[in-house]
């Protein structure tokens, strides 16, 4: 089993009057929230409300049009925690020509968390794709890809999880596993920000409801 011990600093995420503009159009304006270690924020709203854009800004993939976003270590040192986030978008960054094992190894090396044979087997086994470690990812179903994306996140512990529609393509069993993983992450002091229009397997501490701007 991958041991969910506390291997990252406790982090507080603070957003102050964030706004986002895409293609000259304001997607959202003045979004503020503050969420501490061990808590989960659910971002809800209809399509086009800017849920994904908010997560992409938090992941550093988009520049906010205005406002401030901070990842602060909760304990003592005021310095910003470096590269604290895991981003799970609708694509899982898997190379179709390579096996699941090679794909996961690659990401572990990028995250500088070398994964041994046991770690890989434990993580994929838990997600029900252990038998597919040596298959090329090109033959995976959408649900299996999503599970592979979750394995990537499990293998390299980071304090902040940004989940964009995490339950998409997952079956009931996969949702239950995702729920357990999210619970464990929160237990060990992580932060989760999840954007979704469906019910999440874990109850959120805070909800941010985004409306489409008039």
């Amino acid at each position, binding site marked *: 089993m991958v041991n969910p011990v506390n291997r990252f600093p406790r982090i507080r995420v603070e957003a102050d009057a964030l706004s986002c503009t895409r293609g000259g159009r304001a997607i959202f304006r003045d979004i503020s929230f503050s969420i501490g270690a061990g808590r989960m924020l659910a971002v809800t709203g209809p399509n086009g409300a800017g849920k994904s854009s908010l997560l992409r800004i938090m992941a550093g993939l988009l520049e906010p049009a205005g406002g401030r976003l901070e990842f602060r270590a909760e304990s003592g040192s005021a310095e910003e925690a470096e590269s604290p986030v895991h*981003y799970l978008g609708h694509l899982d*960054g898997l190379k179709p020509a390579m096996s699941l094992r090679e794909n996961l190894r690659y990401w572990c090396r990028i995250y500088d968390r070398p994964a041994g044979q046991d770690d890989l087997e434990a993580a994929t086994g838990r997600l029900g794709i252990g038998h597919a470690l040596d298959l090329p990812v090109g033959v995976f179903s959408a649900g299996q890809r999503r599970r592979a994306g979750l394995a990537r996140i499990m293998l390299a512990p980071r304090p902040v999880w940004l989940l964009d529609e995490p339950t998409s393509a997952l079956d009931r069993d996969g949702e239950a596993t995702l729920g357990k993983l999210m619970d464990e992450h929160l237990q060990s002091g992580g932060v989760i920000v999840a954007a979704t229009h469906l019910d999440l397997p874990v109850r959120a501490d805070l909800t941010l409801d985004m409306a489409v701007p008039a």
Partner: protein
Amino acid sequence: MSLLAAIIAQTVRLGIRAGGGALVGLIFFLAVVAVVPFGVGPDLNLLSRIGPAILWIGVLLASLLGLERLFSADREDGSLDLYIASGEPIVLLVLGRAVGHWLATGLPIVVAAPVLGLMLNLSPVALGAVTLTLFAGSPALTFIGAVGAALTAGLQRGGMLIAVLVLPLSVPVLIFGVMATNGAVYDPDPFTAPFLILCAFSLGSAVLAPLAGALALRVAME
């Protein structure tokens, strides 16, 4: 260092796997060079005179082949998002992809060049010279091409655009590459100066291209 090694290793693996394009580049190079004697006729003196230039042009064209997928694949499968979210510098991704691409596609072509040179009636000295100059100069072609690949990463069909962008920028490399090769073969022509300039192109582009490519990828993300 481990990060860069991981990116290079993945790029090489993807390059030489089925559909990766390394073998296609090599065969394309073979085809380009083999077509020339049919075009200019069996004049051995003429062939040995223009042989180095033909090999260089063949390498230039073949180096364009695999570039289209170098970053657009990363963009499409989400790897680019995840890489940027990981907080690691994009410069290293561009550098690693370019080096890996050269190892998988550029190096085999350089190794094949002297074999194809035999078809063009090159003298042993010319064979050695063209291989040496290609070895020194082809990294510059790949690095310049990587910038073009990064610029077109966000486009649906960027392949032709890469060729249009990259070929004019590659002209100086071609000029000094052929000049240095001829310098080694014909006596009064200079060899050292153009060869060193060629090396400078490769080293300079190894520094500048990752910076330019990272900027281009950032823009392509928007």
